[in-house]
């Protein structure tokens, strides 16, 4: 029942958010500022996480597939398989899902507490009294900015995952970088790119809209603003994982 009422409230909230902006010049100025905050300000954390995750995934996959085993003779395992595993998992899961889970913490908490703070300090009420659709004014630029910038961050993350793996290969003797590249190219399908981009757009919407929704309905004071940030991140993570499963089922079901 509680979930249903939350869905209802979210739908009503989105009904106000997805209206034509009051003044397009102000709207686009705000959207460009949000694009900077969401995209450029998140670049460093995305670079670091993608690079190290790529390197670690390559080393661990190589370790698991090439270590001596009674079940499977490792000498029969072509080394490019490691590249295939790393390349595919980067494209399908690590770049979109892991990056968005990290961005949920960074962008989601930030948006929820920013709007929550505006709510408790009556700034949202001030917009309303002026005759501005506050839900639209504070949320839509963030959603548009997220939908444009988060897929870009995920594309960057995907390259850096492979770059991290590439450098990890250079540091070890078990796998060559050409094995990695060959494997990644061998199994690449345009469908995987489509899945990655679909995930990134949907996750971007989830991160920005859910966090804004959580912040917009904050009541109370500083404690509740903090709680709004925490609740937003938790909900975003749950929804990202749920939609990750749904998208995988829809696109990759064989």
């Amino acid at each position, binding site marked *: 029942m509680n979930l249903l009422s939350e869905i209802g409230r979210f739908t009503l909230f989105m009904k106000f958010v997805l209206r034509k902006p009051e*003044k397009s010049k102000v709207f686009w100025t705000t959207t460009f500022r949000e694009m900077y905050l969401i995209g450029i300000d998140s670049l460093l954390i995305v670079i670091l996480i993608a690079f190290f995750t790529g390197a670690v995934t390559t080393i661990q996959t190589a370790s698991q597939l090439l270590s001596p085993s009674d079940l499977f003779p490792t000498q029969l395992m072509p080394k490019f398989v490691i590249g295939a595993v790393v390349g595919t998992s980067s494209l399908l899961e690590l770049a979109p899902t892991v990056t968005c889970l990290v961005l949920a913490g960074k962008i989601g908490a930030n948006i929820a507490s920013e709007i929550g703070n505006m709510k408790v300090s*009556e*700034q949202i009420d001030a917009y*309303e*009294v*002026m*005759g501005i659709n506050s839900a639209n004014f504070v949320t839509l630029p963030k959603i548009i900015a997220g939908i444009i910038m988060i897929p870009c961050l995920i594309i960057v993350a995907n390259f850096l995952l492979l770059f991290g793996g590439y450098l990890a290969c250079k540091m070890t003797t078990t796998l060559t970088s050409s094995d990695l590249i060959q494997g990644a190219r061998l199994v690449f399908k345009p469908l995987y790119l489509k899945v990655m981009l679909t995930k990134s757009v949907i996750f971007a919407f989830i991160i920005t809209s859910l966090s804004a929704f959580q912040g917009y309905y904050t009541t109370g004071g500083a404690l509740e603003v903090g709680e709004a940030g925490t609740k937003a991140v938790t909900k975003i993570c749950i929804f990202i994982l749920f939609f990750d499963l749904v998208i995988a089922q829809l696109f990759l079901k064989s």
Partner: protein
Amino acid sequence: MITIQNLNKWFDDKHVLDNINAEFKPGVANLVIGASGGGKSVLIKCMVGLLTPESGKILYGNQDFIGLEYHRKQNLRSEIGMLFQNTALFDSLTVQENIEFPLRMFSKFTPEERLDRVNFCLEKVQLVNVNNKYPAEISGGMKKRVGIARAIALEINYLFCDEPNSGLDPLTSRIIDKLLLGITQEFNITTVINSHDMKTVIDIGEHIIFMFKGQKWWEGSNHELPNARRENPELDAFFKASF
């Protein structure tokens, strides 16, 4: 002129506004007073559309605000200015940008015209050299003045002030009172002030509504207060408690 007819508002089973009828005229300071929980903040929030009453009418001129269609309501709102209790200045914008904000949204002014209007409003509230300061860098009294300047940036017809003197020292409170009265008379706007400050009530309360337990308990002017206090124990108790 704002007319309120048979206004009722409930929060769950609590009747917070009980059949309120009132008229607020332009050019005079209309004060809504009463103890906390008496319904005065709810009344103001209903009047500006932040809360929706269960029944009754709020007439701005001849237009029923509650029944207005969304876009017409938004248009009417651009004629309304409000000074919030905590000023509600946009903390990421400078003083100038705060005052400029309604002009950017609702006027066709050029940047130069906007700056002229900002300076005019700042002059009206007796503030100088604060254009580039952020709200966090100015005092409480200055924030209130910036709040008033932002509220009058557009040529408004209605001004609402929620506890304009809260958190201010007596001297600054008097300055704010004078500013509000001056602006009300100069621009002939309908000003509704929700206040706890008895000095304000006595000084500028040409039209006072005393709210008690969600009802309009007494209505009159500051000149009628001494007699009213003798006849009305609740009003008298409120005044005694305030001093």
